[in-house]
């Protein structure tokens, strides 16, 4: 169950990363289709890193001498990670939900006080969550896996951003 929560949070993070890297790169007024494609790209990116994480987990499990202890240790670490990731996700989703209220000032305030700062602290939350998760783990395999997953999570936005930048560069070369 804990791993399922982490997986869902990874998908949500990918979705939002996909949206974020696409913003400011299309100047049309009506662009639901553009954003929908960007969100799908983010979701697929998150799916790729989740799959890589799962493969790594299975490999470690296959070759670890502590197979029984490893599962318990991983579950403990994942549960601790949730204590950091879940409140962060709730705060981000709450900020987005507030933007449903039709007030320009309130919506702007969610950017200034919510989404902007939350974007700024995202990498730190990632690092804090994983470190808190693996800090008290008993096995070196859990720690290595945690750090590997942290690397994947941090690289997601970087790669999505590179793709979006390349598409933007191509489009601008066509129009100017």
């Amino acid at each position, binding site marked *: 169950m804990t791993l399922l929560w982490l997986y869902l949070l990874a998908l949500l993070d990918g979705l939002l990363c996909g949206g974020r890297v696409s913003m*400011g790169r299309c100047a*049309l007024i009506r662009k639901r289709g553009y954003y929908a494609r960007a969100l799908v790209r983010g979701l697929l990116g998150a799916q790729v890193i989740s799959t890589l994480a799962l493969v790594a987990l299975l490999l470690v499990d296959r070759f670890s001498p502590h197979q029984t202890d490893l599962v318990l240790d991983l579950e403990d670490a994942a549960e601790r990670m949730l204590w950091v990731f879940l409140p962060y996700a709730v705060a981000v989703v709450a900020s987005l939900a507030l933007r449903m209220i039709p007030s320009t000032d309130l919506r702007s305030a969610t950017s200034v006080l919510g989404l902007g700062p939350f974007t700024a602290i995202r990498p730190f939350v990632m690092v804090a969550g994983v470190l808190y998760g693996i800090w008290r783990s008993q096995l070196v395999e859990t720690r290595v896996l945690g750090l590997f997953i942290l690397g994947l999570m941090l690289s997601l936005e970087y790669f999505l951003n590179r793709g979006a930048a390349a598409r933007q560069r191509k489009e*601008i070369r066509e129009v100017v």
Partner: protein
Amino acid sequence: MFASWNPAQPEITDLIVQHDPYTLARVRVRKQDVLEVFGKFGNRKAIRAVEGLPERDGWLDEKEIDRLLVRTHWEMQRLGEEFYHGPRVYELLRAVIAAIRKGGFEGELKVVDVGCGIGYDIRWLAARTELAKKGVELTGFDLNSALIHEANRLSAAEQLPCRFLHGDAFSLDHSGHIFLSTGVIHHFRGQGLREFLERHERPETQAFLHFDFQPWFLAPYGSWFFHFLRMRTALARHDGVLSAARAHSAGTLAEAARCAAPGFASGIYGAKIWNTPAPRVFHTLLGIRRPLIEALGKALGRRAWRLGELR
């Protein structure tokens, strides 16, 4: 104060694109000249940004500069979207239009965006409101032909009822009943600000709405934070923050308008959030013909409290 926040200096975009004031033809810009301007202010951030600009034999590469400007304006539009700038413009504009109509004007009403860039305000109004169907002509002007080309391309892609023209919005070849702008007015300083406002004194012009950053002590910090997070080019990050530092105070804007365009009653609209002391990011210099003031108040309805003193 950081050197890059010194309001006495121009923005990078003020210098890297130059036009002949009469023919509007593009004038080549020597990179070293731009660097020397920022060197005088000790603005290393601007110097680094300018050093990174593409050049050919010491002259800025016009095509690459245009590409950079288009990219920057796409990003600026994102900030406009995030802060719901379109609805903010429409909120005041529709009240001004209602007041003008109430005053007896029945013909086609010309709304002109001065220094429209890629025309976000005008395209948003064309796409999201019924103004065009209600006899309002939406036009944007800019001196930069690449930005106007992009505005027209975007408008055509969505088949929007608006147009964009390369040139001077106040030239005698064009007329405007309402002039508006966003983030433009702080580029005019001192006597230049008065001259800009004087140009609104045309018989057909009924009102002007100039949206710009509202200066207060946290504005440059907030602007720095947001431009760091949201903008991707060194140029946009530098100029965005400097814009907030250079923004005119409400008093400066209102006094300049009252002196330079005495045919209008001028004041500030939308300075505070929900009638609290908290300032909005943008405020608006509003000028309107005096006989329309009462109708404007009624058209604003429950938002009339946002209107400052008009005189």
